[in-house]
């Protein structure tokens, strides 16, 4: 059981860190670009919100299988497939939780407003400098929301991890797939305990998110 919890926590933590790194530049670009086609990119980034997780899982599984063009590129490095591995789970989770990072970050970046960024520019700050010293600090609420949402959403994913990871005990089994296999084998008592644990976890994270957000929302005095 501790193994399952550890895998779940590790998956959620790794996904959260990687996704914040990947989604931040994307969200910044979506918030600030004036390109007409940016909403096409925005829609693609939001697709995982409406796609069935099994569809995401299916495509990721195909892409990570030994015969895919992507994996063929990695064959010389001794990597045959990432399907049914922890790395595969991380890749699936990145797609699955992408909108949960992009959306709060984009909203936060959009709310910064032009005057502060223009002011930094007149003080001699170039684009990257403005992003790091004005964009990120003024969007800290967005980062907190994104981190909490991605983490809890990744803990709660089922379809993708089952498709990509197969729920192999000790390797790719996470809490949600464990509950499924417990129910399949009619171990309702154990399933109850895990399910209740996840309800408590979800409540605590959401409460924490709201409290942190309220604190950060206070004007800086």
């Amino acid at each position, binding site marked *: 059981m501790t193994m399952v919890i550890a895998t779940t926590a590790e998956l959620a933590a790794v996904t959260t860190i990687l996704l914040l790194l990947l989604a931040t530049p994307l969200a910044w670009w979506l918030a600030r670009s004036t390109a007409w086609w940016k909403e096409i990119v925005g829609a693609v980034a939001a697709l995982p919100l409406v796609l069935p997780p099994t569809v995401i899982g299916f495509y990721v599984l195909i892409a990570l299988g030994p015969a895919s063009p992507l994996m063929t590129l990695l064959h010389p490095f001794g990597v045959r497939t990432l399907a049914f591995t922890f790395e595969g789970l991380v890749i699936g989770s990145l797609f699955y939780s992408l909108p949960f990072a992009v959306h709060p970050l984009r909203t936060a970046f959009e709310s910064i407003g032009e005057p502060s960024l223009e*002011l930094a520019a007149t003080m001699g700050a170039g684009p990257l400098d403005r992003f790091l010293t004005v964009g990120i600090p003024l969007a800290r609420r967005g980062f907190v929301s994104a981190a909490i949402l991605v983490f809890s959403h990744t803990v709660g994913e089922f379809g993708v991890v089952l498709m990509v990871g197969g729920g192999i005990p000790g390797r790719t089994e996470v809490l949600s797939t464990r509950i499924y296999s417990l129910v399949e084998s009619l171990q309702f008592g154990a399933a109850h305990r895990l399910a209740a644990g996840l309800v408590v976890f979800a409540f605590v994270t959401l409460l924490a998110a709201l409290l942190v957000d309220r604190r950060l929302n206070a004007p*800086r005095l």
Partner: protein
Amino acid sequence: MTIAVEIAVKRATRTAPPFTLDAAFEVPAHGVTALLGPSGSGKTTVLRALAGLDRHAGCIRFDREIWQDGSHFVPPHRRAIGYVAQGTSLLPHLSVAQNLDYAERRAPAGHSVRQDIVVRTGIAALLDRMPARLSGGEARRAAIARALVGRPRLLLLDEPLSGLDGEARAAMLAQLAGLLHDSRCPVIYVTHSADEAECLADRTLTIEGGRVAVACAPRSIRPAAGISGG
């Protein structure tokens, strides 16, 4: 050394009458040049173009440097300017001292003028405050200090006294006159108040009806400040 501006702006919106501005002037790159005109006349538009915050058709030249022409555009962070916009012109997430740090760290090489500026703008007691905790007048003084600490080659001020009245305004006007004179930095000073222009400026340009006129005489006490071209 002169600052030359030649920009044309045409803006049509559904809600407001169309806005056109043909600003062409050349002023000496020293002393204070007031840009005087009623609100909505395009003063801020000219100032923002000088800062590089907006790009309109035309040319802008600072001394021998082309800041903007048909093919070339120097972005604001490479212009080494100081810009004080209307309202609170400070970064909201940094204290007054941190705002000064921010400007100073990105300033062109040179001697720090920070100590002197802090004392002369009277913001020594405000250094630890966040911008949200400053009164209107305090925020203006801090913003002007912030702009000067960056050792700008050109200082752009947009209505720095608007919203202040009575004693506070008079006091700051006197303070500003001394500061701007001693900074040895050319200043473009946008205002709608003729007496501010009279009190601070070496020369005044008026904007009205979408055109810039180089009508007002330079102040007599500084005869060196003349207007070349137009």
